[in-house]
């Protein structure tokens, strides 16, 4: 009987979706030649697809609900996801880590410079993801204008190089600083806003920066952008394209390690804990003597710093930049990396970046559906797995048993 009702439900759902997608997916009118094209096949696909998926959907929702119930019922020992369990086992992750390391080192020699280039791009997004992760994942500030700082970094290299001939290495830290500066500049006034307002204001800032870059020719050369930005130099010796690519790749690997190192230390520090506490409960957090604005600002500025740094690399890698590369969609993409990976989790963000950036490159079939999948990922992750692929586990601290005067207060 139950089965039957389930089937009926799914049947109606599939009907509903066939109805829903009818005008957009089935009909296509060519208003120029006045032809209507009927694509009934799509309707069939939708019908079958939604029929099957509705089962999965309901099943997943149900099991999610069950888990929540159990958690509320007190026995909160939620089963760790496979990924987590794996990551906890030293005998698994140690060799895995070594393997990954070796693979990373060998990569440019195993594959063509094109592959290396793609991987470099992916690594750039890993860095961006980790940077945004500080802001969104740890401090819980939804920043939809992250790309603005990315642009700041890129343009600071392009312009400093154009006007003063400063080299990559000189600008890398400068770009980071300028990024941080803008982070503070923009962050200071808006950080007292509530979560979703903050999101919108940051989005606004992102757009403002882009529009200024587009309009202020004297400063940024407008939409036609800046070309012939030099690639990073290696003690002034001339690198061939391939060498330059490999060099950039290793540079990125190094920077990623650096980023991971820093973010990891920050997360387990006094500051990091303050961020997380802030995300969990603002008022309580302040009541614990934590300065809200200062803490938020640190997170915002640090995130911006990373964006700025990657921006410099971006400019050096593409050798050409224009405002078109810094749209809201870019911000959304970085956000979806963090979301997919798991807010606050470093491993997660890395995986997220690799999956989202590499898959469309290699599975060419997807490339047209790239953004579609991004959108879907964000929704599905939020609905079914808000904590991301890899849950962010709380660190267990080592504490010394100390002689407390007399017996504990509670017997």
């Amino acid at each position, binding site marked *: 009987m139950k089965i039957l009702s389930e089937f009926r439900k799914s049947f109606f759902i599939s009907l509903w979706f066939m109805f829903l997608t009818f005008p*957009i997916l089935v009909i296509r009118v060519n208003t120029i030649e006045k032809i209507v094209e009927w694509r009934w096949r799509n309707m069939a696909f939708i019908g079958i697809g939604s029929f099957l998926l509705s089962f999965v959907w309901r099943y997943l929702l149900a099991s999610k609900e069950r888990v929540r119930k159990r958690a509320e019922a007190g026995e909160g020992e939620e089963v760790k996801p496979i990924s987590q369990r794996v990551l906890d086992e030293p005998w698994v992750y140690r060799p895995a880590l070594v393997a990954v390391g070796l693979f990373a080192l060998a990569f440019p020699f195993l594959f063509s410079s094109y592959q290396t280039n793609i991987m470099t791009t992916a690594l750039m997004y890993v860095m961006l993801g980790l940077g945004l992760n500080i802001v969104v994942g740890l401090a819980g500030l939804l920043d939809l204008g992250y790309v603005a700082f990315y642009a700041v970094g890129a343009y600071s290299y392009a312009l400093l190089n154009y006007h003063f001939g400063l080299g990559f290495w000189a600008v890398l830290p400068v770009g980071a600083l300028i990024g941080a500066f803008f982070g503070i500049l923009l962050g200071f006034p808006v950080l007292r806003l509530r979560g979703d307002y903050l999101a919108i204001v940051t989005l606004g800032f992102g757009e403002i920066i882009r529009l200024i870059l587009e309009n202020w020719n004297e400063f940024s050369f407008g939409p036609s952008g800046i070309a012939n930005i030099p690639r990073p130099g290696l003690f002034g010796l001339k690198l061939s394209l391939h060498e330059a690519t490999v060099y950039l790749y290793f540079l990125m690997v190094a920077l990623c390690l650096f980023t991971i190192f820093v973010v990891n230390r920050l997360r387990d520090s006094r500051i990091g804990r303050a961020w997380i506490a802030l995300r969990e409960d603002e008022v309580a957090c302040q009541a614990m003597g934590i300065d809200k604005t200062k803490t938020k600002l640190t997170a915002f500025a640090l995130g911006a710093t990373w964006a700025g740094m990657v921006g410099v690399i971006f400019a050096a890698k593409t050798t050409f930049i224009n405002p078109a590369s810094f749209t809201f969609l870019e911000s959304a993409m970085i956000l979806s990396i963090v979301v997919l990976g798991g807010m606050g989790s470093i491993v997660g963000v890395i995986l997220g970046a690799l999956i989202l950036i590499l898959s469309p490159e290699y599975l060419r079939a997807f490339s047209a559906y790239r953004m579609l999948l991004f959108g879907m990922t964000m929704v599905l992750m*939020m609905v079914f797995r*808000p904590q991301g692929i890899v849950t962010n586990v709380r660190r267990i601290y080592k504490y010394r048993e100390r002689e407390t005067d007399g017996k504990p207060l509670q017997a």
Partner: protein
Amino acid sequence: MDYFLELLLGGLTRGSIYALIALGYTMVYGIIELINFAHGEIYMIGAFTALIAASVLTMSGMTGLSVLVLATVVAVLYASAYGFTVEKIAYKPLRQAPRLSPLISAIGMSIFLQNYVLLAQTSDFLPFPNLIPALPFMEPYSQLMGSTELVIVLTTAVATVVLTLFIKFTKIGKAMRATAQDRSMAMLTGVNVNRVISNTFIIGSALAAIGGVLIASHVGRINFYIGFIAGIKAFTAAVLGGIGSIPGAVLGGLVLGWTESFATGYVSSDYEDVFAFCLLVLILIFRPAGLLGRSTAQKV
């Protein structure tokens, strides 16, 4: 002087357009405190369905007002359906989730719908027939304002009034207010919160669809991306006026429209949007609740 007047009227049209879409944003926010990012896409889908319906109808030999009416009906129908479905899929499962989750899910939905239309239809701009018949009595004033523009302004005004009355007096409206005040309380007093929320989405989407038809008629072309641009602006308007308040949305829309119009008229349209966003940022910094919004004191 009449330059000023023209800018004023131009701004009025623009503002009404923003306001019309902003109403949907503000209603949804009022009920579940969610920035429904996908609202702009609902408006876009409304416009597309209207276009498709209208073309099919005209090709089957129908003309005049009937096309406008039928196309609008179809658009409203589908936009509401989409709004309803989006809520069920992307927001309903996230009722207990932390604040950011539904917002992110909304952004995802918006990107998804954009690309859904892009892939299913086309990336090019499609010409949109002006479905609104020219009103003869507007002829002498065509210098200042066309019939389409007039219709848009009037529609916005009417929509606002009707909506306000609806929420004040009807049963559904009262239920909405209750839910907005305190969801759990409303639930206790026997309000079916889920239905209320669905209703909100349906009404908001319907408005967006009407907006879609009118605006597309005014602009004359649509593509998959119009929702995003209009959405951001409309949202800015909603926040400007104090999100959650219906008159606020309209006021915000008008303020935004006039800001842009006069900024263009007296300064330059190069930085049109910069002005708009700066306005938003300033308002939020100095009056976070917006122009007409009531600031909610944090409970401890």
